[in-house]
C-alpha cells in the first residue's frame, strides 16, 4: 500500500508536536512534507525570552534538529512560505512556485506580532517579539543604542523588557491600562509585580496610548495621545498577536478571528485541518502551548485513524518567566457578588494568594510570591472539585508564609499535573521512570515531553526523580553548592554570570553575595575558568585566582622548588633541542633530568628565582605540565617508519598539540595518536585517543589512565584527519561549556552519558558553532614563559626573592 501524503504549512511548536504524536502512533503511515518560512528547524519559541536575556543561545533552543527530520524521512522546506492551497488539485503552492500534492493538509501557521497601525510603525528600529530574527535584531540594537520602549505590559512585553535590561538598555514600558497583566492578575498582585520590576530597573509609563512613532528613517521617540513624547532608539510592540490566517482565507477556508475548526480540528475545507495559534475553536484562539498540544494530540490520533475523544477546549494557567518573579494565574481573577474568595496577603514576605470560589468550586487562582500551591489548586479547578467541605486552611495548604509542605512530591496525588505546558501528571512521570529506567530530567523529557516547553517544571521533575529513585538518583545531578562560600550550584552561577553580564571574579562574588568576600581555593579558580569560558576572548584572566602551579607556570614540589617541562610536540625532538636542555641542566645544576610519562623531558628541582632565566636559556615553549589545559599529545612513530603503520600519527599528533595548546579546560586533557590498533601511544586511555586504521581514523573519547582507570569509548570513525580535528574541537568545546570545573572528560561523560554527547554533536551546525566559539577563545592566549621573560613587572611580582641587608 502506498503511503498517504501529509503536508503541513508552518514548522512551529504546535504543528511539529502534532507530527511527533503521529509518528508515535503510526510511524509508517504517511509521507510527510513540511513548509516553514523561517530558516530554522523547529525551535522552542517560549525560550526566546531566555535567549534575549542572554541565558541561552539559539542552538540551545532547537527542539527538532535537522537530523530529526532526516531520520524520520520528513521532507522539510525552510525559508519557503505557502501562498495558496488549491483544493481542486489538492496541492499547495509555495512562494518559490513549488507545488506539492496532499491527501491530508495541516495548517499550523501560528501567529504574528500585532503591530499597531500608527504613523511611523514602519520605521527602522520598530519590531515585534515573535521569532529568532526579532531577538537577533534586538540584541544587535542593544550594542549600538541605549533607550528602549516596550509597548504593552503583558506577559510578552514584560519578558522583552527584562531581556532588554539584561542587554544593558534603559527600558520604558508603556501600558494602556492602569495595571500590568490585567488579564491575568488582580490589582493587588499587579501592583506587587510592578514594584518588583521597578526594583529591577524597569520604568513604567501607565495609562498612555501611543499615537505616533517619531524619527526620520530610524525611530527616535514616541508620542502619546496626550501630546507628551519620550525618546527611544528601539520600539518593541508587544500589544498582542494576530493569527496567520491569510493563506487559509484566500484559499476559501472559513475564517473568523482564527481558522475555524471543529472538535477534531477540521476546517471548512475537506481534508484540511488547522492546529495551534492560527486555529479558532469554539470561538477561542489560544496563545499558550498547553492547549495547542492538546489540540495536536486529538488531531494526530484522528489522522492516524484511531478513535479519540473530541477536543472540547481548555482552561489555561500562566506564569511569567522573569527572574525574581513567581506568579501563577488561572481562570477568573476578579470577584463578583456571586463569588467568595480566600485571600492571603503577607506584605512582609511579599506573598499574595487569592482563590476564587464560585458555586463551591474553584473558578480562579492568583498567586504571587509563592506558587507552591499552583498545581494542586489548578487541578482542583480543572476537575471542578467540590470544596464546600474544606476549610480555607486546607485549600491553601502552604499557608501565608510558604511554610507548608504541599510541594512535597511524596504527598502529591498521582493525577496532579506536574508539567502544565504538556499536561503531564506525576503518575505518568513516575511510571515512565520505573518502566523505562530513567535517571535524568532530560530522559523524562524525551519520554513524556514534561519539561520540554517553558521549563518551569524541571525542578519538580528533579524532585520526583529523587523521590522515585532514592539513593540511585545521580547525586551529581542534584544541586551541590560550588563551595562553602555560596549556596549556588555550578549551573546557577554560570546562569547568573550570563544573565547579569558579570565580568570578573570579584564582581561575581560581590553581586552573588559570597559569604567569604574574597572566596577560597575552590571557587576562585572555578569562577576564573567559567568567566573565561563564557566571555571567550573578552575575558582578562585573573592570575591571582589560580592555584600555585598555574599561577607560576611550573609545578611546585614539596621543597618549594619547581619542575620545568618544555613542549616537545608529539614527543618529537631534535639533537639541537636535546643539547639546549642538557646545557641548561648543567648551567643551573638541575638535580633531576627525567623522561616524563608524557613523552618529554622534565627538569626537576629548579628554584623559583631561576625560573625566568631557565626559560630564557631554553628558548622553548611551556609544556603546560601544570595546567588545567591540554597536556601532551603522545604519538607513535607510525607510517613514516613502522611496518604496521597506516597513518601519519606523528603529523596529526603535532597538529593537534599546536592547535589546542594553552586552552583552558575544566580539568587537564590528554591526547594520544597511534597509527594502528596495536596502539603504542596508549590512545585507549586518553581523553581523546586517535587510532589510525586503513583508510581512516577511529576517535576514542573519555579515556583515563589515572585514579579512575577508564577505557575510552569509540566516538566515531572518519576518513580524514580534518574530520578528527573538527570532532575533537566540537567535543572539547561542549565539554568546556558543560562540565564542572575539575571534572575530567571521563567522569563528565559517565555523568551526562555518551549518547547524549553523540546526539548533540550529530548536528553539523552545532559542531560548527562550537568550533567557532573554540577558535575565538584560542585567539586570546600568549605563550606564558616568553611573556614572563619580556615583562619585568611579572618577573618582580611572582619570581623574585629579595635579600634584606641587616645592619649590625
Amino acid at each position, binding site marked *: 500500500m502506498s503511503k498517504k501524503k501529509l503536508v503541513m504549512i508552518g514548522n512551529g511548536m504546535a504543528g511539529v508536536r502534532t507530527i511527533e504524536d503521529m509518528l508515535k502512533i503510526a510511524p509508517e503511515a504517511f509521507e510527510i512534507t513540511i513548509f516553514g518560512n523561517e530558516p530554522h528547524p523547529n525551535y522552542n519559541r517560549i525560550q526566546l525570552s531566555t535567549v534575549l536575556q542572554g541565558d541561552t543561545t539559539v542552538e540551545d533552543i532547537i527542539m527538532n534538529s535537522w537530523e530529526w527530520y532526516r531520520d524520520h524521512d520528513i521532507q522539510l522546506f525552510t525559508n519557503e512560505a505557502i501562498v495558496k492551497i488549491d483544493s481542486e488539485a489538492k496541492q499547495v503552492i509555495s512562494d518559490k512556485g513549488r507545488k506539492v500534492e496532499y491527501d491530508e493538509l495541516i495548517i499550523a501557521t501560528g501567529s504574528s506580532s500585532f503591530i499597531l497601525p500608527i504613523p511611523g510603525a514602519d520605521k527602522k528600529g520598530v519590531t515585534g517579539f515573535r521569532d529568532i530574527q526579532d531577538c537577533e535584531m534586538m540584541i544587535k540594537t542593544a550594542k549600538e543604542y541605549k533607550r528602549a520602549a516596550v509597548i504593552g505590559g503583558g506577559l510578552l512585553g514584560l519578558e522583552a523588557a527584562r531581556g532588554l535590561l539584561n542587554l544593558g538598555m534603559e527600558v520604558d514600558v508603556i501600558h494602556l491600562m492602569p495595571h500590568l497583566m490585567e488579564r491575568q492578575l488582580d490589582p493587588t498582585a499587579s501592583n506587587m509585580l510592578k514594584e518588583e520590576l521597578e526594583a529591577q530597573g524597569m520604568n513604567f509609563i501607565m495609562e498612555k496610548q501611543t499615537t505616533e512613532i517619531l524619527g526620520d528613517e530610524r525611530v527616535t521617540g514616541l508620542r502619546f495621545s496626550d501630546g507628551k513624547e519620550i525618546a527611544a532608539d528601539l520600539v518593541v510592540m508587544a500589544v498582542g498577536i494576530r493569527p496567520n490566517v491569510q493563506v487559509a482565507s484566500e484559499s476559501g477556508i472559513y475564517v473568523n478571528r482564527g481558522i475555524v475548526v471543529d472538535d477534531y480540528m477540521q476546517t471548512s475545507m475537506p481534508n484540511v485541518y488547522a492546529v495551534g495559534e492560527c486555529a479558532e475553536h469554539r470561538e477561542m484562539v489560544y496563545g499558550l502551548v498547553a492547549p495547542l498540544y492538546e489540540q495536536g494530540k486529538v488531531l494526530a490520533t484522528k489522522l492516524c485513524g484511531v478513535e479519540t475523544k473530541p477536543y472540547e477546549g481548555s482552561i489555561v494557567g500562566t506564569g511569567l518567566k522573569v527572574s525574581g518573579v513567581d506568579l501563577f494565574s488561572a481562570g477568573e481573577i476578579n470577584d463578583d457578588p456571586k463569588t467568595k474568595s480566600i485571600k492571603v496577603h503577607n506584605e512582609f514576605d511579599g506573598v499574595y494568594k487569592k482563590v476564587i470560589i464560585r458555586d463551591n468550586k474553584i473558578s480562579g487562582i492568583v498567586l504571587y510570591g509563592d506558587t507552591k500551591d499552583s498545581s494542586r489548586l489548578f487541578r482542583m479547578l480543572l476537575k471542578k472539585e467540590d470544596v464546600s467541605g474544606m476549610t480555607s486552611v486546607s485549600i491553601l495548604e502552604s499557608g501565608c508564609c510558604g511554610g507548608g509542605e504541599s510541594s512535597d512530591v511524596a504527598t502529591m496525588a498521582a493525577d496532579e499535573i506536574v508539567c502544565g505546558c504538556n499536561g503531564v501528571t506525576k503518575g505518568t512521570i513516575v511510571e515512565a521512570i520505573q518502566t523505562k529506567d530513567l535517571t535524568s530530567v532530560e530522559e523524562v523529557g524525551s519520554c513524556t515531553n514534561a519539561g520540554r516547553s517553558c521549563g518551569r517544571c524541571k525542578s519538580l521533575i528533579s524532585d520526583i526523580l529523587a523521590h522515585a529513585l532514592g539513593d540511585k538518583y545521580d547525586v551529581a545531578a542534584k544541586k551541590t553548592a560550588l563551595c562553602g562560600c555560596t549556596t549556588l550550584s555550578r549551573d546557577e552561577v554560570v546562569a547568573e554570570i550570563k544573565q547579569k553580564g558579570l565580568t570578573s571574579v570579584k564582581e561575581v562574588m560581590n553581586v552573588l553575595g559570597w559569604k567569604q568576600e*574574597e572566596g*577560597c581555593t575552590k571557587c576562585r579558580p572555578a569562577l576564573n575558568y567559567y568567566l573565561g569560558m563564557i566571555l571567550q576572548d573578552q575575558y582578562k584572566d585573573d592570575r*591571582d585566582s589560580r592555584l*600555585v602551579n598555574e599561577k607560576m607556570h611550573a609545578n*611546585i614540589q614539596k621543597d*618549594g622548588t619547581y619542575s620545568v617541562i618544555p613542549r616537545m610536540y608529539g614527543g618529537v625532538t631534535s639533537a639541537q633541542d636535546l643539547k639546549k636542555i642538557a646545557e641548561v641542566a648543567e648551567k643551573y645544576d638541575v638535580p633531576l633530568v627525567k623522561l616524563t610519562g608524557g613523552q618529554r623531558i622534565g627538569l626537576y628541582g629548579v628554584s623559583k628565582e631561576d625560573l625566568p632565566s631557565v626559560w630564557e636559556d631554553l628558548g622553548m615553549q611551556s609544556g603546560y605540565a601544570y595546567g588545567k589545559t591540554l597536556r601532551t599529545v603522545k604519538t607513535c612513530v607510525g607510517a613514516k617508519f613502522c611496518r604496521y603503520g597506516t597513518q601519519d600519527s606523528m603529523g596529526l599528533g603535532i597538529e593537534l598539540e599546536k592547535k589546542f595548546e594553552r586552552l583552558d579546560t575544566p580539568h587537564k586533557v590528554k591526547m594520544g595518536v597511534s597509527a594502528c590498533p596495536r596502539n603504542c601511544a596508549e590512545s585507549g586511555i586518553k581523553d581523546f585517543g586517535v587510532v589510525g586504521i586503513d583508510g581512516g581514523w577511529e576517535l576514542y573519547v573519555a579515556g583515563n589512565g589515572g585514579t579512575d582507570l577508564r577505557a575510552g569509548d569509540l566516538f566515531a570513525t572518519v576518513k580524514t584527519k580534518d574530520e578528527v580535528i573538527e570532532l575533537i574541537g566540537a567535543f572539547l568545546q561542549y565539554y568546556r561549556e558543560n562540565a564542572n570545573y575539575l571534572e575530567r572528560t571521563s567522569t563528565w561523560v559517565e555523568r551526562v552519558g555518551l549518547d547524549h554527547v553523540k546526539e548533540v554533536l550529530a548536528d553539523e551546525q552545532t559542531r560548527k558553532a562550537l568550533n567557532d566559539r573554540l577558535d575565538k577563545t584560542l585567539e586570546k592566549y600568549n605563550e606564558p614563559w616568553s611573556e614572563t621573560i619580556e615583562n619585568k613587572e611579572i618577573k618582580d*611580582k611572582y619570581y623574585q*626573592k629579595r635579600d*634584606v641587608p641587616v645592619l649590625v
Partner: protein
Amino acid sequence: MKKTLVTEYQSLPERVGQVFRVDGVEIVLFRLSNGEVRAIENRSPHPKGGTLSEGLVSGEFVYCPVYDLKISLTDGKVQAPDEGQVKIFSVERDNDQVFIVK
C-alpha cells in the same frame, strides 16, 4: 626588640606574597585588599613542609599552596578542621617604609 626596614610599601603588589630573606629566615609579606601588610614565615606548618608565598590570599587568610591549609594572617593559626601554627611577625609602617619587628 629589633626593627628592620624591609621594603617600600609601594613595591608590594596586592594579594601576592613577596619573599624577603632576613637574617637567614624567609619572611613573606602580604599586602591585603584592605591595604594592610602582614608578615609570616615562608614555611607551611604541614609536617612535610613547603612554602607559603605562592598561596591564594582571601581577606585575612592565605591558603597553603601545597596542602591547601587555611591560615590566618592575623595570628598564624591554621583553621579547623586542620591544625597548626605559622610564625608571624609584627609589621610597622612609616609612610612608605615597611618594617618588621622581632
